């Protein structure tokens, strides 16, 4: 399953914190529109580095699909940063 939403939350004692819900599924629209160009560039890079084009596509797809569930929370200097991929 591809990631649908990314949540970014930043809190700091010095200024008002904020939270962002980024709808990643909306990125599909420009991505599909630009896919011919992206694929051509990727093909050129794969040929240049003598790497299998199909394998590259598969690995990239696997990485994108395995992103949901990633959760990073850092608390330092009384500031908090949270990044979640849903």
């Amino acid at each position: 399953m591809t990631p649908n939403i990314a949540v970014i939350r930043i809190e700091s004692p010095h200024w008002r914190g904020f939270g962002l819900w980024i709808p990643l599924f909306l990125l599909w629209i420009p991505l599909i529109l630009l896919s011919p160009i992206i694929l051509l560039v990727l093909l050129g890079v794969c040929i240049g580095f003598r790497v299998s084009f199909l394998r590259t596509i598969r690995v990239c797809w696997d990485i994108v699909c395995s992103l949901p569930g990633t959760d990073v929370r850092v608390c330092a200097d009384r500031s908090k940063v949270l990044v979640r991929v849903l």
Partner: protein
Amino acid sequence: MNENRRQILEMLAAGKITADEAERLIAALEPGTATTVGEYSGAVNGSNVAAAAVKTRAKYLRVLVEADETMTGMKGATTVNVRVPMQLLRAGVRLASLIPAQAHEHLDEALSRHGVPLTLSQIKPENLEELIDHLEDLTVDVDGKEGNMTKVKVFCE
């Protein structure tokens, strides 16, 4: 009857496990039951079959770091809590298969220069998959001592 269920009942009949342990093992076999990795591995000593049967695959690798002010120089405690899906690790190691052949020599040279005599071309994707699979049994606990309150925990869940 399910083979795993039969084995658990046989162990119960043989007196290897208690009725309570058998109940928990059977409950763990039910689909949709969440079981912590290795939760039952110690419950049935001497029976690797049943332990393996109920052991579920870990979904995430968790890294927890806690450091106090003396370590970081920052105000308050510093904590890092990272949860990485195991699937992402698997996909990440597959990236190794995309490293161009001409880059292997440079990487091998650089690694050996830094005291890591490793030949990347000898590492196959299936070896890396195996490595990830064995990460599920990994638990790292690091505790600081004598005033150093840094704690590091790495485990799968």
